[in-house]
């Protein structure tokens, strides 16, 4: 018995094919992982399955219903968590739960869910004030209300730390009945590897469907296989790094955080945070959601005034001379923050110009970036309409466009497909070799291994600083993920 049957499905947007003659069956009672490169049509497929979008051609049957004509009946049987989950940020945790319970016509019995999500003591907190991981858990809890027959989750773990990610997985596995079907789209291949079935999409087509375990026994191998399926990744020399013109400077520690503190009321968001990053070093900030990484980041680049302490970039104090300090900085924010109304090329032009690249240099540089990042096809598209992974790519491109000697990257790889992630890190590592200093945060523990040094952040403080192997040795962990969990647990004591 299949929950979803799709035959010859096609969907076009403004002349571009998003889903291309796709046929697919999703088995009842199984967890199916949806994997694919950015823009491969994952979100569109999910939206078509539940009738939020209408197909151009082809047939879809979900739980025996036609989403085109029987959407109302279908809605009663499904739970859908969109990528940007619709929590009402100005409502509290419990108010959100009550709302979605009423919308699904189920009793207000949240004990078990609150327990599972560890949200019990935050019941009266506004959803907007929760950390990213907690938001996603609350969102999932709302979707799980009323025990839907079919659960559709669109990248629920984007931007979520490893601990919360494990919680999300546990929630789904423990709280659903054996008959429940789950369709889970994800960019984390360790997650996908643990599912019953994996579906790999590429350019709107299914290129693989089967048991992930059959494809590869280990996560690492699985990742390589998926990359091969998606066309393979060939490591080439990073042209960004090749064209990088080093800036002469005799500052040894190019980025210095000097006792940074941020106090909100009587709550320390960040507390005596100090570190020095050498020229050409990749320094990783790791930690659970809400630990104070982004707050530190914002203070480091002068977006937020520290309560005390300061930061120096290329020796320039950010609080005293912000304009000069920032001139050396390439910054990529956690949330997409380019102009959505401008096209890809217009954004690149704009950021190049405000960083002082003009006329012929501008044209040359922008063409180069378009070529390196593969924006040729999308250069005329409004950036707001791009898939998440493309937006991240564009953000990175804009941060790199003026050849900054220092890069601040806040979760650059969140929502980015596995191949692009490798490309990103190829650029980052090559740039570092050329002398670019990089400060980066990430929730991918395999990426943490690429860093020269790591500062593990928890509850506003750095609980451990050192090289990845030093940290692993410290708690005798085999992987970075294990070290992360152990170090956090240790500091709890």
């Amino acid at each position: 018995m299949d929950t979803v049957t799709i035959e010859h499905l096609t969907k076009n947007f403004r002349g571009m094919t998003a889903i291309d003659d796709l046929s697919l069956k999703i088995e009842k009672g199984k967890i199916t992982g949806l994997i694919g490169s950015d823009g491969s049509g994952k979100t569109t497929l999910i939206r078509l399955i539940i009738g939020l979008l209408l197909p151009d051609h082809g047939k879809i049957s979900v739980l025996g219903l036609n989403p085109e004509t029987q959407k109302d009946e279908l809605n009663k049987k499904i739970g859908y968590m969109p990528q940007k989950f619709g929590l009402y940020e100005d409502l509290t945790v419990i108010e959100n739960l009550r709302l979605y319970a009423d919308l699904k016509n189920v009793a207000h019995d949240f004990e078990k869910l609150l327990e599972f999500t560890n949200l019990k003591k935050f019941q009266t907190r506004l959803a907007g004030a929760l950390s990213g991981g907690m938001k996603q858990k609350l969102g999932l809890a709302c979707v799980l209300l009323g025990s839907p027959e079919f659960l559709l989750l669109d990248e629920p773990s984007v931007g979520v730390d490893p601990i919360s990610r494990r919680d999300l997985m546990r929630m789904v596995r423990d709280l659903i009945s054996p008959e429940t079907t789950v369709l889970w789209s994800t960019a984390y291949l360790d997650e996908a590897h643990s599912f019953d079935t994996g579906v790999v999409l590429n350019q709107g087509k299914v290129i693989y469907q089967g048991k992930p375990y059959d494809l590869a026994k280990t996560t690492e191998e699985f990742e390589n296989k998926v990359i091969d399926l998606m066309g393979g990744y060939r490591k080439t020399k990073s042209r960004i790094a090749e064209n990088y013109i080093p800036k002469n400077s005799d500052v040894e520690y190019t980025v210095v955080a000097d006792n940074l503190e941020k106090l909100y009321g009587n709550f320390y968001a960040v507390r005596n945070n100090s570190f020095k990053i050498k020229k050409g070093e990749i320094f990783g900030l790791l930690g659970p959601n809400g630990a104070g990484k982004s707050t530190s980041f914002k203070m480091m680049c002068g977006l937020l005034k520290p309560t005390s302490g300061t930061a120096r970039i290329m020796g320039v104090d950010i609080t005293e001379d912000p304009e000069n300090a920032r001139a050396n900085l390439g910054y990529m924010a956690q949330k997409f923050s380019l102009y959505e109304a401008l096209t890809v090329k217009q954004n690149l032009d704009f950021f190049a110009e405000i960083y002082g690249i003009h006329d012929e240099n501008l044209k040359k540089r922008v063409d180069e970036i378009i070529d390196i990042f593969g924006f040729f096809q999308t250069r005329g598209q409004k950036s707001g309409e791009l898939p998440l992974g493309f937006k991240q790519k564009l953000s990175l491109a804009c941060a790199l466009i003026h050849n900054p000697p220092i890069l601040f990257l806040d979760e650059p790889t969140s929502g980015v497909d596995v191949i692009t992630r490798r490309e990103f890190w190829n650029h980052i590592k090559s740039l570092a070799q050329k002398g670019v200093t990089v400060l980066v945060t990430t929730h991918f523990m395999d990426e943490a291994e690429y860093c020269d040094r790591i500062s593990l952040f928890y509850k506003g403080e750095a609980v451990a600083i050192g090289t990845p192997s030093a940290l692993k040795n410290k708690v005798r962990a085999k992987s970075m993920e294990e070290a992360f969990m152990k170090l956090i647990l240790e500091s709890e004591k």
Partner: protein
Amino acid sequence: MIEKLKKILALIKKEFIITWMDPKSRGIIIALPIVQLILFSYAITMEVKNIDVVVVDQDNSTESRELISRFDLSPQFRNIYRVENMKQMQNKLDNKDANMGLYINNDFSTNIISHTPTDVLIITDGRQTNSAAIVSGYVSQIVSDYSQEIAPTNGVKINVVTRNWYNPNLEYRWFILTVIVAMLAAVITLILTALSIAREREMGTFDQLIVSPLSSVDILAGKTVPPLIIAMALTCVMTFVVKIFFGMPFEGSIVLFLISMFVSLLSLVGVGLYISSICRTQQQAILGVITFMMPAVLLSGFISPIEDMPVFLQYLTLLNPIRFFMVLTRGIFLKGMNFADVSMNLVPLIITATITLALACWSFKKRQN
């Protein structure tokens, strides 16, 4: 320096692209004001026309019919309804089927023949006192003309000879057009500026600007110039429409007009940017715009003259850019104001512009930290 200008130019270009690329946005900046300009200028008049009169003629004589026919002949009056008694008249007036009532007593003709002064009763509708006052003006004129004609002898009399300078035929449209041009330009300027920073804050793009090497003055300059240019272009288009379509005179100097427009709009841009710089969300920004715009339009002197307001409100209007903008458009269009007169009205505008832009810059810098 050139480097800095190029960066600001990039900011300006970005604003233009964003405002111009979306057809909805174009519609708001062009179609909305032009349609409103045409609509308002045809619709708005203070004159009261098409007045319907309800008449009770108890006398029903040649004389009474003569008086009534005077109403019929007057261009402002439309229908004459004859009813039998006061009750029916009241009914018509209550229901607003007629705008005024005329009651003629049964001794009307007898009195006229015997040259005895006699009254006719005029009833106006006090539910709209402004129209009522105008209607009673018309009626008094008609009755007194009639009275003059039937008077037995010619006595002394004062003729009030009126010359209306700048607008000899008292064309209401000329007055209102200058007002509407200024008002619509003000509305569009506020729309363009007040939401711009708040929107970038909500979208997160503002952080991206702040981490760039642009200074806050650069960013503010980038936010000031585009709406100023758009609003000035729009005002010029509206002026053109007004001149061509409505044959409105333009007595003054174009240069002075451009200067006045520039300064007026600049001070409005200042107001808009200040609102924008203190608001976190777009919702708060519209609230700010309305809280400024409603009083500014109402107290600009176009509905009700400034001299007539309580003194403290009069002082308050010194800060109202729309007030001086209107004085200047009207003065330059109709009166051909010279440089000295124009500059007198520019002073308060320049002060407002300086204050608001400085405030915007200050609160903008403060917010960053």
